[in-house]
């Protein structure tokens, strides 16, 4: 190849330009190999310049190529007949494509047949010598002398499928700005041997093709939703919040609802919304002093409250459920905090699964993750709650917040958190918040002037907004698209 390349460069230095197709005819050299050599010269940089040209050309078919070399079928038939003649069947067996050759030779009047011969039809030569015109035409085509053939001959050959017209891409080559007549083979990669021997100094290296993609590294990937979970954990830890032990998916109605002053007829406690448990059907252990206080505050009030004035039943509170929120764990934590000898101000968070007996669709699953943060301290204000929420969302990249009055059985005041969505150009709800009711805190035994402020949101919704996912099932559960996990970018919430 290098030899051919240098030959081409010599030709170019003499002529200044050439067309690859013309040159291949002139040199009697295969055009494709010539183009290959030109391309490799082109890859060296500006040694040559090339301009692509398209043309049509007649080319021999495989049958045509054979004829150009060996002669036409009819000539081969003629040559195969001995002086004394030959049996027709024997003749046809001697020559490939015998039948075609036989009928052509007959119509050209080169041979004759005696059908009455006693050993079957006998063929003899009719003329003394022949001229194999078809072979000559094929040879002309092979030698690119197509202009010496008449149109009639061309059509005849085309009809016999000896020649065909093909599109040819050729290149018109000129000297480039870096033109030189010698090239050396370029190295692709630097090797240890080259460094050891120092041979790299004498070699030229092929420039790296920066347009190609690199080799993807073999790697594993973390799940996108859990990457977001990691970031939210990080935010809480940065803000000094400690993580709550939320590894208890099965919860009693008592801690999930009653402890939160959520009445026993509340719709959230309906089988339509909550997964009840057949086994283990009921919880069997409660802090009984505290339970009595919860019962009292529900049924007759106390701690400054009117209560809900209904017949509170232990049976209802004992029912086990798949927890509907992580706030039951918050209640357990606050209860424990209240049992300490001296109250210590505390900040807690959790991010874990909760369960709802939902009909599944693109935005609802039966389980999802709840993010929850709470602060318990003396004299906390509603302004503090909004302040914490503002800082929390700032770390998440959301700066514009506003709060809407809302209702929640266990918080008062209660606020829905809205953020201004720059893309949608409207306010969207991003979470819920409130100050835990005295009816929840005082029966636990927390000091009267201690307030607990809390907020919560789902992990899935911000993640779906962040990654533009419209179907939650593509994010959580077996129907996830693994390719999307492989391709998922870094999770930087504030970007």
């Amino acid at each position, binding site marked *: 190849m290098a030899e051919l390349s240098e030959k081409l460069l010599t030709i170019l230095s003499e002529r200044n330009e050439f067309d690859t197709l013309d040159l291949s005819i002139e040199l009697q050299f295969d055009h494709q190999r010539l183009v290959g050599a030109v391309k490799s010269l082109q890859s060296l940089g500006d040694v040559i310049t090339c301009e692509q040209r398209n043309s049509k050309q007649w080319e021999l078919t495989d049958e045509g190529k054979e004829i150009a070399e060996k002669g036409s079928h009819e000539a081969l038939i003629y040559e195969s007949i001995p002086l004394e003649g030959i049996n027709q069947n024997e003749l046809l067996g001697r020559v490939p494509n015998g039948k075609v050759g036989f009928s052509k030779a007959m119509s050209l009047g080169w041979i004759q047949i005696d059908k009455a011969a006693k050993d079957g039809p006998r063929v003899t030569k009719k003329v003394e010598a022949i001229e194999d015109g078809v072979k000559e035409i094929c040879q002309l085509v092979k030698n690119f002398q197509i202009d010496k053939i008449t149109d009639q001959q061309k059509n005849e050959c085309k009809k016999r499928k000896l020649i065909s017209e093909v599109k040819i891409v050729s290149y018109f080559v000129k000297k480039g700005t870096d033109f030189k007549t010698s090239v050396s083979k370029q190295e692709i990669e630097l090797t240890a041997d080259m460094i050891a021997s120092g041979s790299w100094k004498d070699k030229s290296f092929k420039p790296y093709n920066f347009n190609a993609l690199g080799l993807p590294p*073999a*790697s*594993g*990937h973390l*799940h996108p939703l*859990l990457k977001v979970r*990691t970031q939210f954990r990080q935010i*809480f*830890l940065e803000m*000094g*919040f*400690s*993580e*709550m032990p*939320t590894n208890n*998916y*099965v*919860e009693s109605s008592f801690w999930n609802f009653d402890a939160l002053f959520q009445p026993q007829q509340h719709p959230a406690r309906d*089988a339509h919304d909550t*997964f*009840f*448990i*057949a*086994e*283990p059907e*009921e919880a*069997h252990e*409660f802090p009984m002093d505290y339970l009595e206080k919860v019962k009292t505050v529900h049924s007759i009030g106390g701690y400054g*409250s*009117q209560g809900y004035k*209904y017949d509170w039943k232990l049976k209802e509170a004992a029912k086990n459920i798949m927890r509907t929120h992580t706030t039951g764990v918050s209640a357990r934590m606050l209860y424990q905090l209240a049992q300490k000898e001296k109250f210590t*101000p505390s900040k807690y968070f959790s991010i874990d699964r909760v369960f709802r*007996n939902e*009909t*599944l669709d693109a935005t609802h699953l*039966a*389980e999802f993750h709840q993010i929850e943060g709470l602060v318990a301290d003396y*004299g906390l*204000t*509603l*302004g503090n709650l*909004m*302040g*914490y929420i*503002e800082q929390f969302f700032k770390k998440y990249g959301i700066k514009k917040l*506003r*709060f809407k*009055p*809302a*209702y929640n059985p266990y918080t*008062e*005041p*209660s606020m829905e958190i809205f953020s201004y969505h720059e893309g949608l150009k409207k306010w969207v709800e991003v979470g819920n918040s409130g100050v835990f009711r005295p*009816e929840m805190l005082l029966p636990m035994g927390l000091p009267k002037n201690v307030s607990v402020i809390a907020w919560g949101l789902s992990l899935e919704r911000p993640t779906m907004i962040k990654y533009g996912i419209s179907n939650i099932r593509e994010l*959580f*559960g*077996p129907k*996830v698209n*693994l*390719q999307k996990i492989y391709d998922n970018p870094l999770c930087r919430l504030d970007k």
Partner: protein
Amino acid sequence: MPTVGLKRDVLFSILGRSYSEDEFNDLCFEFGLELDEVTSEKEMISKEQGTDKAEGASEVIIFKIDVPANRYDLLCVEGLTRGLLIFQQKLEAPIYRMIELPANSINQMIIHPSTAAVRPFAVAAILRDITFTQERYQSFIDLQDKLHQNIGRQRSIVAIGTHDLDTIQGPFHYEALPPKDICFKPLNHKKEYTAIELMELFSTDSHLKHYLHIIQDKPVYPIIKDCNNVVLSMPPIINGDHTKITLKTKNVFVECTATDLNKAKIVLDTIVCMFSQYCAAPYRVEGVKVVSPDGSYLMHPELPYRKEIVSPKEINKSIGISEDASSIASLLTRMCLPSVIIDNGQSLEVEIPPTRHDVLHACDIIEDVAIAFGYNNVNRTISDTNCVAEQFPVNKLTDLLREVIAAAGFTECLTFALCSREDVADKLGKNIKDIPAVHIANPKTLEFQVARTTLLPGILKTVACNKKMPLPLKLFEISDVILLDKTKDVGARNQRHMCAVYYNKVAGFEVIHGLFDRTMQVLEVPNNDYKFIPVDDAAFFPGQCADIMVRGQNIGKLGVLHPDVITKFDLNMPCSVFEIDIEPFL
């Protein structure tokens, strides 16, 4: 959260001005309401039943407004506009009063002991000389419907009946009778039916069939009759046709029957406070003497005005503002909580009207101050609550391990904690009876029959949904499984598991084995501290499964899955796995 649909033009005419959608939205937002949707009857019908069904329906614009679940006083146009107008200081809160009649009045409802078996409570009141229009009448019906659905919990707790008083005569009797002994002409029907026939008749009624179960299996059904045995209603199912209200009705008898007396009172108060507005003497309601089975009696509606003493100082402290007592009093007045300053400004006496049964505690009053002040006008500050943060140990370990396993070339899955019984048993060649699983009592689909006891099924299902991905698939999950545990208060506990799966044309056990070795390496468990003990397990290929023993403790299994397991999870390639409990490494 209940949603009420109100005609925009009616709403604006009562509010005394019109609003752009944004303006109205902002007003709602401040007050704690949410303009959910702007629509029309035509649009709603065409959305639910198709455009052809909507032809000819009204195109009057309707605002659908979300109302907080505890604000029953905002569930109709009368109450919602009254609340907004008072909030805007364009109206003073009305005083609702009961007109007490002499003790011997025929305005009586006598509760018979038989009702104890089915629906023990009843209260009643009379709206005297009321004027209905088509709009008012519709609103009256709609409010009853909203109350039935919300506080009434689909009529199971409270059911309301309203009757044309001029067609009946007190005293009224609330009793419970065997169904065969009840016979009357139900609302909008032409003939009489026994209660047994009625239950049959309504079992195909798209609306009423949902309420039948409340009394269906009771030996006796509740019934309200007048002194001449005319049936008013058979709560909570249907009223009688005889006492039907029309636009011409002047005097309305309202009765509420219930399983919860407090809720019955709230419902009765709400209805009469809202609609006494249209009586000749506005906001005055005629009392009914309700006689209990023990002979004691009470006048209804109670229309209680309760007084709470609150401290402006405490209110300021809990919200984080500094308003003086008179300004707080006027903020409360705007929330329908008229307040006066007492003790030289040290205290406020707040009067809670019968429309505000949601106010249970001083904290509810504080919320109303904050709403009237404007949540978004409060300074946002951080408290100086200094704490040293700590991670929950098992979550910390999990996050550290996740990083290592992903770095080892495995991709993380996130699968459901609930699954089918088959997933944790049959498909793994086990019997559900031998699995210590938590069983769900009311799953809507087979996907949620049990809580998972292993992470493996979830990961195998993830593989099955990703069969078009290039092999091998290397997946893992570190998450909780749930196991029965009698020592826990609820009888079950979570356990943090780690499961890894290698799925390829060959089982590749050495890959899973290698990942496990790596896991032990990062957990600083030296080679001679763990070993594999061959064991038979129906989920695994015979001879290719082992218990994993770490320092003598069995923490899980590893091996090549049985081909039956692979096919049952709709897979077709060999698969090697390990699943361990990571809690021993805490």
